[in-house]
């Protein structure tokens, strides 16, 4: 098949991962476990559709989607930072909550258990392979952007310090808590945007439409050893595997189940081999009592 269309499809598939993973990197670099990305994405997707539906403008949708992601991120932040609750458990709950809340409001606002009505979105001229969608371009630059933030800005420096040696950060007057709040907020906004892209690309919200993409994203973060660029490459790799999977299908040579596994098996192999020893931020997930 045409390599260009392959590339285009790969990128379209990668965009939600890129948004979520970039957010995940920031949060985890600051020391907060990001099992929550799935939930942030889902809420972002619903927020986008809600906003677009009632305003008629996808841009309002983008904002409301970001807002939705942010709200869930702040819940997570308050529980884990202010109340020092276990990050993984709260993370799991956030994901459940996101599913529940979106269903609840889907029923409330759109009287449906499956999907919202159709809403306006961006672009849509297939000649351009979906590249007339501003969010797609944003998705392409978000990882380099986060790389800049983490490695080239004072805030990024503080994020890295907070995740590696919080006491050292505190000892020079850096408020680790504040840094982490902001980092989690960023992860909520970005993961939310991932959901926004999904929803507006579909022009509607459907129940659980993120379908596990948040977990792929968090794997990409680890796969990429908590580095925005490497994580982005991991996202592209997963997307490539998925595109390949789409292309390989149909010829019933291999059972689709096995093709489905490709990204996950890849991750595990990578974890064991390539990045096995890669050490996460030293203070990741630590709850000091």
């Amino acid at each position, binding site marked *: *098949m*045409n390599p260009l*269309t392959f590339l285009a*499809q790969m990128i*379209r*598939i990668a965009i*939600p991962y890129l948004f979520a993973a970039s957010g995940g990197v920031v949060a985890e670099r600051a020391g907060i476990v990001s099992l929550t990305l799935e939930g942030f994405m889902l809420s972002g997707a619903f927020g986008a559709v809600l906003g677009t539906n009632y305003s008629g403008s996808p841009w309002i949708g983008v904002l409301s989607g970001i807002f939705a992601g942010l709200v869930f991120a702040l819940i997570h932040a308050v529980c884990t930072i202010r109340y020092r609750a276990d990050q993984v458990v709260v993370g799991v709950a956030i994901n459940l909550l996101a599913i529940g809340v979106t269903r609840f409001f889907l*029923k409330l606002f*759109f*009287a*449906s*258990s*499956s*999907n919202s009505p*159709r809403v306006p979105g961006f672009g*849509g*001229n*297939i000649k351009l392979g*979906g590249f007339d969608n501003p969010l797609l371009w944003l998705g392409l630059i978000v990882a380099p952007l986060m790389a800049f933030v983490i490695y080239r800005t004072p805030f990024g420096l503080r994020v890295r310090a907070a995740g590696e040696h919080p006491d050292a950060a505190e000892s020079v007057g850096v408020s680790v808590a504040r840094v982490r709040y902001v980092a989690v907020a960023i992860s909520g906004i970005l993961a939310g945007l991932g959901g926004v892209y*999904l929803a507006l*690309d*579909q*022009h*509607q919200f*459907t*129940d*659980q*439409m993120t*379908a*596990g*993409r948040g977990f792929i994203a968090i794997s990409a973060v680890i796969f990429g050893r908590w580095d925005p660029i490497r994580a982005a490459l991991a996202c592209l790799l997963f997307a490539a595997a998925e*595109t390949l999977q*789409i*292309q390989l*299908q*149909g010829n019933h040579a291999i059972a*689709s*189940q096995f093709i*489905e596994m490709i990204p996950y098996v890849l991750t595990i192999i990578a974890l064991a081999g390539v990045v096995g020893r890669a050490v996460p931020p030293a203070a990741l997930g630590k709850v000091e009592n």
Partner: protein
Amino acid sequence: RNALAEGKETSPIRIGIVLDVGGRGDKSFNDGAYAGADSAIKMLGSNIRFIEPGEGADREAGLRLLAAEGMNLVIGVGFIFTDDLANLAKEYPNTAFAGIDYALATDANGNVIPPPPNVAALKFREEEGSYLVGALAALVGHSKKVGFVGGMDIPLIHKFEAGYRAGVKKVCPDCQVIAQYAGVTPDAFKNPGKGKELALSQYNQGVEVIFHAAGSTGQGVFEAARATNKLAIGVDSDQNDEAPGHVLTSMVKGVNTATFDVIQRVENHTFKGGIYSFGLKEGGVGYIYDNRNKALIPDSARARVEELKQEIIAGRIKVPSTL
């Protein structure tokens, strides 16, 4: 909800329906069953109670709740209810049960085992409807390529693919059918993003019409049809509204009529257990042809498909239900 609201006297007969987890508003067979029940309420003043289980383990619980309340008829919507219905039917021999898509087991030498006497197995021969839309897809498209997007890769969906393929081959032996599935977990019915990419890649390969049997993953197929200005075929109910002008037709499944039908039988005491198979003959399955989509369908194609329909009804064409 009782019929008094609609200003009719309520029938003394009480009916309970347990929808599947998807629940109301799934724009698929749950809504179909609901629609059928709704018209029964309006036209027959039926007294119907609905239950939407929150999770799989609650399906049986829902049925049981209704049976225990002494409902005259209890309907389970979805093949997944099969075993629960069979068991309950034995426990409540005086209650009438009906199962939509009731799965029939076969004994050692391949003969179907009939359901308990007080169970009506409402079956649909989706393959027949799929056959017709397959033929239509092949006739309308000019690229000798037609597409199929399934949800979860399971036999139930293979049934659609099988009929579809047969229909295509019938009218266009050298046509190629590209069939793909969105996944292998229940997520696969809820992943429009995947559905869209699958459809796009098919349209890219020159496919002009795609038939989906993929729940809300199908929403993505319609999006792709809009984006590429190609055609898609809906499933279960008339999905024309999902992408007006891009929905060639829909392979409709008369869940509503079947539901209404069985309710009516109970209302006028003519209910009998057994297998009720709804195909083209019974008008239980079919394809949409109305002034919303007739512009997309050339009369020649329409004529050919009607021909095939008659032949199937007459039994001259046997439509396969497995790959």
